[in-house]
């Protein structure tokens, strides 16, 4: 008998194709929890439970693939900010005295770190520089609802001069008549952030981070990470910074430097 053959990558295709014909069962996982598992919002132990179900449930496997695709589109780091356990830790057993000494050193380091961090919020010392005005021309062309002559460039003089209060006012007014304009949202967010209003900056920067061209989105994600950090959402900020550092953003080097200053290991950094 000639056995049917499914070679190489077609194993993947055949595996995925089954999801098209599967129905959801009572045991199927809540989609929100699957999203949380993929974006690292829940602990690996809990994530493993959801993923184990998806391994044998074609319907949930389809949801899992959709979650991965959506997380990548959203610019999130698949698996979150968790990083792998060094392989040597699992493979070799150290002598007990060495493990005890290492634990003591770690405890001392952790105590020093806690004392140091409680003395001052490191984010309070993070300086924010103004984004250069480079996005408007292309964005004006792309903005379909903008009437002729009603361009963003016409109101950006205060921003270019560095008069951020006036620029913020002008951009807020512009956004009322052009809600969601990507570049206007971005520069409005930057103004708010530099004026010390990071919580208000977040929604504009988020809007910009999901709109416009790639360069605008990359810039918006960088400032969004800074806004998150300044508003106390440190985990979210670090997750974004790691995503920026790991990708091909022009802010990658800045993100790695900032992570280093914050005492956080950047993706791909040495031990």
């Amino acid at each position, binding site marked *: 008998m000639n056995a049917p053959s499914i070679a190489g990558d077609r194993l993947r295709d055949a595996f995925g194709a089954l999801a098209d014909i599967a129905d959801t069962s009572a045991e199927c996982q809540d989609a929100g929890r699957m999203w949380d598992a993929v974006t690292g919002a829940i602990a690996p132990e809990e994530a493993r439970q959801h993923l184990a179900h*998806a391994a044998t449930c074609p319907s949930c496997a389809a949801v899992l693939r959709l979650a991965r695709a959506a997380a990548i589109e959203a610019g999130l780091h698949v698996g979150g900010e968790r990083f792998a356990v060094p392989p040597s830790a699992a493979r070799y057993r150290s002598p007990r005295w060495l493990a005890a000494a290492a634990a003591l050193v770690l405890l001392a380091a952790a105590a020093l770190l806690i004392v140091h961090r409680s003395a001052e919020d490191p984010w309070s010392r993070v300086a924010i520089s103004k984004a250069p005005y480079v996005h408007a021309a292309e964005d004006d062309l792309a903005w379909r609802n903008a009437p002729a002559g009603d361009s963003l460039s016409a109101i950006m003089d205060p921003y270019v001069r560095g008069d951020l209060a006036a620029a913020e006012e002008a951009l807020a007014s512009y956004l009322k008549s052009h809600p969601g304009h990507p570049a206007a949202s971005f520069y409005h967010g930057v103004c708010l952030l530099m004026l010390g209003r990071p919580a208000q900056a977040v929604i504009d920067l988020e809007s910009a981070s999901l709109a416009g061209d790639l360069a605008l989105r990359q810039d918006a994600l960088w400032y969004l990470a800074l806004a998150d950090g300044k508003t106390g959402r440190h985990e979210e900020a670090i997750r974004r910074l790691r995503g920026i550092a790991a990708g091909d953003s022009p802010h990658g080097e800045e993100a790695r430097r900032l992570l280093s200053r914050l005492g956080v290991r950047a993706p791909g950094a040495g031990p």
Partner: protein
Amino acid sequence: MPPQEDGDRGRSSVDLERIRRVLERAVGRACPPHLRESIEDMVQDALVRTMDVLGKQPEGGIRTSSYLWRVAFTTMVDELRRSRRRPERVTGRDAAETAAAVADPASLETSYETRVEIRDCLGRLAEPRKLVVALYLDGFTAEESSRLLGFGIRKVRNLTFRGLKDLRRCLERKGIRP
């Protein structure tokens, strides 16, 4: 003209418009091709869900884009599941095989039974191997699986290698040559 306020929440219509645009972007980018006709409905549904949360939680809860993406994602999954339950849908085996044949006539070689056998063999693997092989087959990279599962990268690669070997052996026993 000042923006309109929506009652006691005090959220301006401009803000709502921005949230809507974020949801539109999220659904538009991540939506599977066969659900494209329902994009407007899904955006509206996601917006209603967001407004519902707004009524129950402090405003800060919806201010992160990852939250809005989560809402968009769950809305898409609900639509995906609804679309599968619709009576006009062609029955499972016919739909899969017809679609596969149209896309690639050679794919008929990987029949419905073969796909079921792959799932069956996968289900027989030891738990950690099953997890990493399933993620591998779902398109996750080793680094992503490592972060998701909390395993070291070397462990993930070893489990994938050994798990795929087990999977192929199981399929061979069933008369399928991977």
